[in-house]
Protein backbone atom coordinates (compact mmCIF):
# COMPACT_ATOMS: atom_id res chain seq x y z
CA UNK A 1 0.00 0.00 0.00
CA UNK A 2 1.31 3.40 -0.94
CA UNK A 3 1.62 5.67 2.06
CA UNK A 4 1.53 9.38 1.75
CA UNK A 5 4.76 11.24 2.50
CA UNK A 6 2.89 14.25 3.87
CA UNK A 7 0.09 13.88 6.35
CA UNK A 8 -2.09 15.75 8.81
CA UNK A 9 -3.38 13.27 11.38
CA UNK A 10 -5.68 13.36 14.39
CA UNK A 11 -4.04 10.49 16.23
CA UNK A 12 -0.66 10.11 17.97
CA UNK A 13 2.25 10.01 15.51
CA UNK A 14 4.27 6.84 15.13
CA UNK A 15 7.82 8.15 14.66
CA UNK A 16 9.08 4.85 13.27
CA UNK A 17 6.36 4.83 10.61
CA UNK A 18 7.51 8.26 9.38
CA UNK A 19 11.15 7.12 9.37
CA UNK A 20 10.29 4.10 7.26
CA UNK A 21 8.85 6.32 4.54
CA UNK A 22 12.31 7.72 3.73
CA UNK A 23 14.28 4.48 3.98
CA UNK A 24 16.54 4.22 0.96
CA UNK A 25 19.27 1.74 0.04
CA UNK A 26 21.55 4.63 -0.87
CA UNK A 27 20.93 6.55 2.34
CA UNK A 28 23.80 6.85 4.77
CA UNK A 29 21.80 8.88 7.25
CA UNK A 30 18.26 9.57 8.37
CA UNK A 31 17.58 12.60 10.55
CA UNK A 32 14.39 12.76 12.58
CA UNK A 33 12.97 15.95 14.01
CA UNK A 34 10.37 15.31 16.68
CA UNK A 35 8.52 18.43 17.80
CA UNK A 36 6.89 18.04 21.22
CA UNK A 37 4.53 20.02 23.42
CA UNK A 38 6.46 22.09 25.96
CA UNK A 39 5.13 22.89 29.41
CA UNK A 40 6.91 26.16 30.23
CA UNK A 41 7.17 29.09 27.80
CA UNK A 42 8.73 32.28 29.13
CA UNK A 43 7.75 31.34 32.67
CA UNK A 44 4.14 30.57 31.78
CA UNK A 45 2.73 27.10 32.28
CA UNK A 46 0.87 25.44 29.42
CA UNK A 47 -1.79 22.92 30.41
CA UNK A 48 -2.31 21.52 26.91
CA UNK A 49 -2.33 22.61 23.27
CA UNK A 50 -4.90 22.47 20.55
CA UNK A 51 -3.77 22.37 16.92
CA UNK A 52 -5.91 23.17 13.92
CA UNK A 53 -4.95 22.88 10.25
CA UNK A 54 -6.27 23.64 6.80
CA UNK A 55 -5.41 20.07 5.83
CA UNK A 56 -5.65 20.21 2.03
CA UNK A 57 -3.51 23.32 1.83
CA UNK A 58 -1.12 22.15 4.55
CA UNK A 59 -0.33 19.03 2.53
CA UNK A 60 0.23 21.18 -0.57
CA UNK A 61 2.64 23.38 1.39
CA UNK A 62 4.51 20.29 2.65
CA UNK A 63 4.89 19.31 -1.01
CA UNK A 64 6.13 22.82 -1.78
CA UNK A 65 8.77 22.47 0.97
CA UNK A 66 9.79 19.08 -0.43
CA UNK A 67 10.22 20.69 -3.83
CA UNK A 68 12.43 23.41 -2.37
CA UNK A 69 14.50 20.75 -0.60
CA UNK A 70 14.86 18.85 -3.88
CA UNK A 71 16.37 21.95 -5.46
CA UNK A 72 18.91 22.38 -2.66
CA UNK A 73 19.63 18.78 -1.68
CA UNK A 74 18.70 16.70 -4.75
CA UNK A 75 19.39 13.35 -3.10
CA UNK A 76 17.39 13.97 0.06
CA UNK A 77 14.07 12.23 0.67
CA UNK A 78 11.58 13.76 3.08
CA UNK A 79 8.40 12.81 4.92
CA UNK A 80 6.39 15.02 7.29
CA UNK A 81 3.49 14.23 9.60
CA UNK A 82 1.79 16.88 11.71
CA UNK A 83 -0.85 16.11 14.32
CA UNK A 84 -3.94 18.22 15.03
CA UNK A 85 -6.48 18.26 17.84
CA UNK A 86 -5.76 18.31 21.57
CA UNK A 87 -2.17 17.48 22.56
CA UNK A 88 -0.92 16.99 26.09
CA UNK A 89 2.46 18.10 27.43
CA UNK A 90 5.33 15.94 26.00
CA UNK A 91 3.19 14.61 23.15
CA UNK A 92 4.49 14.76 19.57
CA UNK A 93 3.09 17.50 17.34
CA UNK A 94 5.28 17.01 14.27
CA UNK A 95 7.77 14.52 12.87
CA UNK A 96 10.10 15.28 9.97
CA UNK A 97 12.24 12.49 8.52
CA UNK A 98 14.96 13.15 5.96
CA UNK A 99 17.24 10.55 4.43
CA UNK A 100 20.30 11.29 2.35
CA UNK A 101 23.48 9.55 1.22
CA UNK A 102 25.45 11.78 3.61
CA UNK A 103 24.56 13.17 7.03
CA UNK A 104 25.20 16.86 6.41
CA UNK A 105 22.42 17.14 3.84
CA UNK A 106 20.08 15.15 6.08
CA UNK A 107 20.66 17.55 8.99
CA UNK A 108 20.44 20.69 6.87
CA UNK A 109 17.35 19.70 4.91
CA UNK A 110 15.57 18.69 8.10
CA UNK A 111 16.21 22.04 9.75
CA UNK A 112 15.17 23.83 6.56
CA UNK A 113 11.87 21.92 6.61
CA UNK A 114 10.88 22.93 10.15
CA UNK A 115 11.79 26.57 9.50
CA UNK A 116 9.61 26.58 6.37
CA UNK A 117 6.74 24.82 8.15
CA UNK A 118 6.65 27.74 10.56
CA UNK A 119 6.50 30.16 7.63
CA UNK A 120 4.10 28.75 5.07
CA UNK A 121 2.06 25.79 6.35
CA UNK A 122 -1.45 26.72 7.53
CA UNK A 123 -1.46 25.16 10.99
CA UNK A 124 -2.38 27.00 14.18
CA UNK A 125 -1.94 26.24 17.84
CA UNK A 126 -4.04 27.37 20.74
CA UNK A 127 -2.33 27.60 24.10
CA UNK A 128 -4.41 26.65 27.10
CA UNK A 129 -3.12 28.05 30.39
CA UNK A 130 -4.52 27.98 33.90
CA UNK A 131 -5.95 31.46 33.42
CA UNK A 132 -7.21 31.31 29.85
CA UNK A 133 -6.43 30.37 26.27
CA UNK A 134 -5.32 32.03 23.07
CA UNK A 135 -4.63 31.20 19.43
CA UNK A 136 -0.95 31.90 18.92
CA UNK A 137 0.05 33.98 15.91
CA UNK A 138 3.24 34.11 13.98
CA UNK A 139 6.06 33.06 16.25
CA UNK A 140 8.49 34.52 13.75
CA UNK A 141 7.18 38.03 14.31
CA UNK A 142 7.12 38.92 10.67
CA UNK A 143 3.43 39.61 10.14
CA UNK A 144 2.10 41.36 8.25
CA UNK A 145 4.22 39.89 5.51
CA UNK A 146 5.96 42.51 3.44
CA UNK A 147 4.51 41.17 0.20
CA UNK A 148 1.11 40.30 1.59
CA UNK A 149 1.89 36.60 1.65
CA UNK A 150 4.64 34.47 3.07
CA UNK A 151 7.74 34.09 0.94
CA UNK A 152 7.23 31.15 -1.42
CA UNK A 153 10.51 30.17 -2.97
CA UNK A 154 11.43 29.80 -6.60
CA UNK A 155 9.54 27.31 -8.69
CA UNK A 156 6.00 28.25 -7.91
CA UNK A 157 3.50 31.00 -7.18
CA UNK A 158 5.50 33.63 -9.11
Amino acid at each position, binding site marked *: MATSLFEIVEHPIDVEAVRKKVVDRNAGAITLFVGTVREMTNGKKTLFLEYQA*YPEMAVKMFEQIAKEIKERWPEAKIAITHRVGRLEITEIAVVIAVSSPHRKAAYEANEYAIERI*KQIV*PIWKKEHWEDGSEWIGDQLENVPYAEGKPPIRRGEHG
Partner: protein
Amino acid sequence: MIQVLLFAHLQEAVGQSKVMIELDGCTVQEVKKWMEKEYPQLSLEQMMAAVNEEFVTDDAVVKDGDTLAFIPPISGG
Protein backbone atom coordinates in the same frame (compact mmCIF):
# COMPACT_ATOMS: atom_id res chain seq x y z
CA MET B 1 -21.08 31.17 -4.68
CA ILE B 2 -17.76 31.54 -2.97
CA GLN B 3 -16.85 29.27 -0.10
CA VAL B 4 -15.02 31.20 2.62
CA LEU B 5 -13.00 29.19 5.14
CA LEU B 6 -12.15 30.52 8.58
CA PHE B 7 -9.59 29.18 11.03
CA ALA B 8 -8.34 29.67 14.56
CA HIS B 9 -9.57 32.90 16.18
CA LEU B 10 -11.47 33.94 13.03
CA GLN B 11 -13.51 30.76 13.23
CA GLU B 12 -14.28 31.42 16.88
CA ALA B 13 -15.24 35.04 16.20
CA VAL B 14 -17.79 34.04 13.56
CA GLY B 15 -18.88 30.82 15.24
CA GLN B 16 -18.48 28.73 12.10
CA SER B 17 -15.67 27.36 9.98
CA LYS B 18 -17.30 27.99 6.63
CA VAL B 19 -19.41 30.75 5.09
CA MET B 20 -21.02 30.62 1.65
CA ILE B 21 -21.37 34.02 -0.01
CA GLU B 22 -23.11 35.12 -3.19
CA LEU B 23 -20.27 37.01 -4.82
CA ASP B 24 -18.50 36.46 -8.10
CA GLY B 25 -15.60 38.17 -9.81
CA CYS B 26 -14.61 40.40 -6.92
CA THR B 27 -11.24 40.86 -5.28
CA VAL B 28 -10.06 39.35 -2.02
CA GLN B 29 -10.03 42.88 -0.65
CA GLU B 30 -13.73 43.25 -1.52
CA VAL B 31 -14.59 39.96 0.18
CA LYS B 32 -12.73 41.12 3.28
CA LYS B 33 -14.82 44.29 3.37
CA TRP B 34 -18.02 42.30 2.81
CA MET B 35 -17.15 39.89 5.62
CA GLU B 36 -16.28 42.69 8.03
CA LYS B 37 -19.62 44.33 7.34
CA GLU B 38 -21.48 41.07 7.82
CA TYR B 39 -19.46 40.10 10.91
CA PRO B 40 -18.40 43.33 12.65
CA GLN B 41 -16.36 41.34 15.17
CA LEU B 42 -13.95 40.31 12.37
CA SER B 43 -10.79 42.17 11.51
CA LEU B 44 -9.39 40.84 8.25
CA GLU B 45 -7.29 43.72 7.06
CA GLN B 46 -3.91 42.11 7.75
CA MET B 47 -5.05 38.52 7.20
CA MET B 48 -3.38 36.49 4.51
CA ALA B 49 -5.61 34.81 1.98
CA ALA B 50 -5.51 31.66 -0.11
CA VAL B 51 -7.66 30.95 -3.15
CA ASN B 52 -8.07 27.27 -3.94
CA GLU B 53 -5.22 26.45 -1.56
CA GLU B 54 -2.67 28.88 -3.02
CA PHE B 55 -1.52 32.03 -1.23
CA VAL B 56 -2.70 35.17 -3.04
CA THR B 57 -2.53 38.90 -2.50
CA ASP B 58 -5.56 41.06 -1.78
CA ASP B 59 -5.94 42.12 -5.42
CA ALA B 60 -6.56 38.52 -6.57
CA VAL B 61 -9.96 37.92 -8.14
CA VAL B 62 -12.30 35.34 -6.65
CA LYS B 63 -14.80 33.64 -8.92
CA ASP B 64 -17.92 31.57 -8.51
CA GLY B 65 -16.98 28.13 -7.21
CA ASP B 66 -13.70 29.25 -5.65
CA THR B 67 -12.66 28.52 -2.09
CA LEU B 68 -11.22 31.53 -0.30
CA ALA B 69 -9.47 30.88 3.00
CA PHE B 70 -8.39 33.56 5.41
CA ILE B 71 -5.13 32.49 6.98
CA PRO B 72 -4.29 33.96 10.38
CA PRO B 73 -0.60 34.14 11.32
CA ILE B 74 0.47 30.51 11.45
CA SER B 75 1.93 28.75 14.46
CA GLY B 76 2.48 25.11 13.51
CA GLY B 77 5.50 22.97 14.11
